[in-house]
């Protein structure tokens, strides 16, 4: 019952707007909301690992997101200028371009994540104030590096032809790229969940998160595992960066900071350490934003804060929080 309640509440929220609009608008908004939710989830998934599980207030997560977006941007640009993989009317080449951009971004982010964890985060485990200060400092450095390498201005992200435009299914307009985001989001969710619950690494990480001393006294070097988790979280940030860059068709040095706020909201709504909670939180944020933007446009920005306040009032540990 305790676990069913948040799902029931989400379901109620899901059908409520139907009372104020016709069914076709509702379906369009719902698809858009799900897609936006999944894009937010991609960003939040990495933060769930780093902040939710490892309890590191990593403000540099947004900067890693930006780095991922820019690396993906460079790869996409290169592949398109050389061989026209984005403009070619070939699904295979288009998908390959996206895959290459994501892969390159994730590889760079893994390196960046390992560096951040080893050098900056490791000395401040368990000390939130230091974590905020030092990761904010790192954010400034990492973002400046972006400006040095790619320049300070917005640039246009090449979007493969296959993912442009929309499908018109029974009078419902379904944008193509968000569908890709939904599929990727589901894959990421399943991947993380399986890794944490079905593998030995996941088991050790979950135990280490609960009691760092005891897991070491059982013979596991938890810091080696934490480095890997941090690297995986950074890779997910980069994945989110590439996807968001394609969704918004642009890259900007400060793009990560804006997404980071959403990601923190989602992780807190969902309950610290719960991947399922983060997914649900991201979908709630995405859907409610779209519904409210249609019904009461002026309230769209504030609705996420209002939802966070409401959820935390009702359930201070978040939707799926264990209350540790």
């Amino acid at each position: 019952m305790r676990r069913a309640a948040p799902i029931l509440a989400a379901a109620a929220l899901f059908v409520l707007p139907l009372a104020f609009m016709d069914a076709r608008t509702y379906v369009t908004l719902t698809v858009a909301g799900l897609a936006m939710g999944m894009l937010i989830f991609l960003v939040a998934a990495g933060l769930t690992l780093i902040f939710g599980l490892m309890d590191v207030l990593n403000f540099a997560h947004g900067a890693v997101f930006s780095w991922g977006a820019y690396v993906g941007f460079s790869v996409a640009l290169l592949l398109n200028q050389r061989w026209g993989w984005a403009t070619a009317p070939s699904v295979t080449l288009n998908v390959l371009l996206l895959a290459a951009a994501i892969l390159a971004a994730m590889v760079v982010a893994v390196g960046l994540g390992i560096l951040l964890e080893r050098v900056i985060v490791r000395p401040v485990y368990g000390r939130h104030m230091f974590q905020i200060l030092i990761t904010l400092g790192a954010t400034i450095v990492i973002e400046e590096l972006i400006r040095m390498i790619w320049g300070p201005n917005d640039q246009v992200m090449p979007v493969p032809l296959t993912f442009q435009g929309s499908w018109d299914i029974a009078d419902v307009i379904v944008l193509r790229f968000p569908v890709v985001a939904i599929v990727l989001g589901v894959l990421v969710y399943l991947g993380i969940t399986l890794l944490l619950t079905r593998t030995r690494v996941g088991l050790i990480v979950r135990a280490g998160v609960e009691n760092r001393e005891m897991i070491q006294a059982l013979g596991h070097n938890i810091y080696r595992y934490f480095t890997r988790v941090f690297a995986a979280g950074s890779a997910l940030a980069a994945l989110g960066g590439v996807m968001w860059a394609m969704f918004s068709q642009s890259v900007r040095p400060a793009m990560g900071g804006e997404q980071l706020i959403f990601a923190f909201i989602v992780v807190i709504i969902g309950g610290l350490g719960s991947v399922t909670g983060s997914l649900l939180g991201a979908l709630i944020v995405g859907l409610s934003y779209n519904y409210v933007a249609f019904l009461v446009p002026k309230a769209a920005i504030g609705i996420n804060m209002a939802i966070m306040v409401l959820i935390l009032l009702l359930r201070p540990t978040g939707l799926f929080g264990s209350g540790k």
Partner: protein
Amino acid sequence: MPPEPTHGSPPLLEVEDLHTYIGQHHILQGVSLRARRDAVTVILGRNGAGKTTTMRTIVGLLRPRAGAIRFEGRPIHGLPPYEIVRFGIGFVPEGQGIFATLTVDENLRVAMRDESPESRDRLPRIFALFPALERFRQARAGTLSGGQKQMLSIARAFVNPNRLLLIDEPSKGLAPIIVEHLVAALQEMKSQVTVLLVEQNFAMASALGDDFYLLDDGRTVHHGRMVDLVHDHALKKRYLGV
């Protein structure tokens, strides 16, 4: 220091003049002890005497400022805990240290240093010692009773083929009937493993112990055979208040 007890075989664990600080506080100010092979050595002393600090220093969770710890003749002080325990030491901390959000089965599996067939073969023996653990194998460890949590914590240390178990106050907060069950289980285990035990419950300590060490104010002040201590009312009264 009076001479160390020698009973033939060389000690499995040797602690020599250990000094440990926690923050500014000089907690251990010269603890020395030896754990004989295949015996149960009990550390006794009042609250705050340094018993738990001694255990935590041995397992590497605290770094000693001075002194030496040798396991099978090999110095282990200064190594990180995850390396120390891999020499063959199982640690049952004060307050059990179980993973409450994990199931009983997951607690046992995460304790297996490498999920080897040898560790898996030990499970039936563990479940024979603690049948409740098998019954609640899929339950979250946080939902267990205090006694069951303690059993799980001991089982977790026993799941690896360890040569030494460090058990810190297993009877704390448990009902007498549960303590009896624990004593019975530990009696059975002591034939297979050397035990260093911290125990405030003198009945339990004397039932299990072969040797004892008395700590007071962070120093070893007395040691000997448990059977001798049981009859030494003056010593018990002076250091233990019993």
